[in-house]
């Protein structure tokens, strides 16, 4: 299967007053065409930075990016900013965590939605507005004509997220980055948005990278899952396989931290003890070792490389779950 997007050995460093901050370290990820890949990790694990860097959206003189990104046969990392820009909209698009901050507060929905159509597809103003209305209907917004004339602050959170999805899919992208698309929303609205994304993906034959901190969101919405920790991919497998046979202790800990319906009220959630390591000072051993309940001396001394099971399941652990303990 050919990869629509492949990220090879990507590292991102931010220069900060406290020193260089390693947000992403040597990440390899492939997004096969027509699939949906989940990227899971706690906040601060580098998943959002990785996605923005893949699209080349990280701005600023303090950002250092290395590695290669190949999208649909184009090597983005070797192209000029303008050339990459030409792939946005119709090639790649992104939706963001908080639609309140990601929509421009002082411009009407209609102008923000039709803007991409006019700039990228060269539509006339009238055509673009007509298409915008269709797009709003496509994301199931009632009363689309009125919404076109509204400002973001006049809509509900769920509506705003639908608008943002409409903007992202406006030019029929091949690949959609969804960065925590449901985190800022109510639980009931979350389910609707995920449902909408699933349907749109099928109708428009889009691939998707779904970034989330919630393994539960990944379960029903992705074909593959990459688990990130401290800027690295620590486990990668087809979604079903991952849930059936996880190898990485961190993934297990992440799964245990999800509240379950059958929990008796009052039972304590298993939180992952400790916190992410200091991103300006990565230690020598496994990054997760200080928080891992299986950690041994070797884990604290040596950094584990990514290992591959014969079935393609990748993990970064000296003593993976399921092996002789």
């Amino acid at each position, binding site marked *: 299967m050919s990869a629509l997007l492949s990220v090879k050995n990507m590292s991102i460093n931010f220069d900060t007053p406290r020193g260089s901050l390693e947000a992403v370290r040597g990440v390899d990820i492939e997004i096969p065409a027509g699939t949906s890949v989940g990227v899971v990790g706690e906040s601060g694990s580098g998943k959002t930075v990785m996605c923005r860097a893949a699209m080349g959206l990280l701005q600023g003189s303090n950002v250092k990016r290395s590695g290669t990104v190949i999208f649909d046969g184009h090597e983005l990392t070797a192209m000029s900013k303008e050339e990459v820009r030409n792939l946005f909209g119709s090639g790649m698009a992104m939706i963001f965590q908080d639609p309140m901050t990601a929509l421009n507060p002082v411009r009407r929905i209609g102008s923000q939605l039709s*803007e991409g159509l006019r700039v990228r597809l060269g539509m006339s103003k009238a055509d673009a507005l007509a298409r915008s209305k269709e797009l709003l209907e496509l994301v199931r917004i009632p009363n689309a004509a009125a919404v076109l004339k509204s400002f973001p602050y006049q809509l509900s959170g769920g509506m705003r997220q639908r608008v943002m999805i409409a903007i992202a899919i406006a030019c029929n992208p091949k690949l959609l980055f969804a960065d925590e698309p449901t985190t800022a929303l109510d639980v009931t609205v979350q389910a609707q948005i995920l449902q909408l994304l699933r349907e749109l993906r099928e109708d428009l034959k889009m691939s998707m990278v779904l970034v989330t901190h919630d393994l539960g969101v990944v379960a029903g919405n992705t074909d593959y899952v990459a688990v990130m920790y401290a800027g690295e991919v620590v486990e990668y497998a087809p979604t079903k396989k991952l849930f059936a046979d996880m190898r990485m202790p961190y993934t297990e800990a992440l799964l245990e931290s999800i509240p379950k319906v059958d929990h008796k009220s009052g039972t304590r959630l298993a939180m992952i003890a400790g916190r992410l390591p200091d991103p300006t000072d990565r230690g020598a051993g496994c990054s997760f070792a200080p928080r891992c309940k299986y950690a041994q001396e070797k884990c604290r001394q040596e950094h584990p490389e990514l290992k591959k099971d014969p079935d393609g399941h990748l993990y970064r652990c000296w003593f993976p779950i399921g092996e002789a303990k």
Partner: protein
Amino acid sequence: MSRISFWLQRVAQLLIVLLLVTFGVSLLLRLIPVDLATILLPVGTEEERDILRNELGFDKGPIGYYLQWLGNFVQGDFGKIYFSGGTEEVSDHLKVAMPRSLLLMVYTQILSLAIAIPLGVLSAYRAGRRADKIISNTLFTLSSIPNFAIALLLVIFVGVKFAWLPTLGYAPISDGVWEHFKHMIMPVISLSLGLIATYTRLLRADMIAALREDYVTMAASKGLSDSRILWRHVFRPSSMTLLTSAALSMGGLIGGAIVIESIFATYGIGFEVFAAIAGRQYVALQSTVAVIALFYVFFNLVVDVSSGFVDPRTRDRRVNA
């Protein structure tokens, strides 16, 4: 309904401020340890002064005097300027002076914004790089030089050494557009430098903050060009502070205009204030200061109204607040 009551409240606030300002000035005049009628009519007879006292309300208490002045002012009677040879209407003076000062200020604002907006956008876009540092440092230095110093240096070099521009006087537009501008260039530049620095700095700070917003990344992910993002998405939400500052700087401009108008002999409203003080024309002073305060308050109101157009959120937020 609530929007109407918001505006009524705002206008009422401003009216109260106006009343207090004019009352304050009026009270201040009564503090002068000299008989005002004697100052205004130094050579007149005591009977003539009595008539004047009665006419202007000097014989009443401070409040009575203020109310009489206010009544006249509201009806457009701004009082008189007293000479040894007779009197002139303050309103006639203001009719000549107001348009000059307003033009001076409008030109100053236009020039300042026209220079500050591109500079602010550029330095925000290149924040921390060389262009930004050069712009910031140059403007900071220029803005610390008082406007009268710039005016005098312009007079020395542009006016005297090279004799490119007239150093004194004013020409109405009816004398020809070029003639008009020739007299305006130096006063406008003198008043503009400080404003350019202030505006550039404000816009830069606001735009840098806005550039960090998600909606900018979102706009970039739509495949828009940098310049389109900068102007369409970042500039507009950032221009609010700029607009407020522009309107509020009108007051400072009137102050600056006093000195500049006296250096260039423009005879605008700033000069009228100065002339009223120098000539001890206290009635004229009171009315002129009242007119200035009126304009200042008016510009405040303009900010309130226009902010709703620039940032639609404020329209509803204010009403709800």
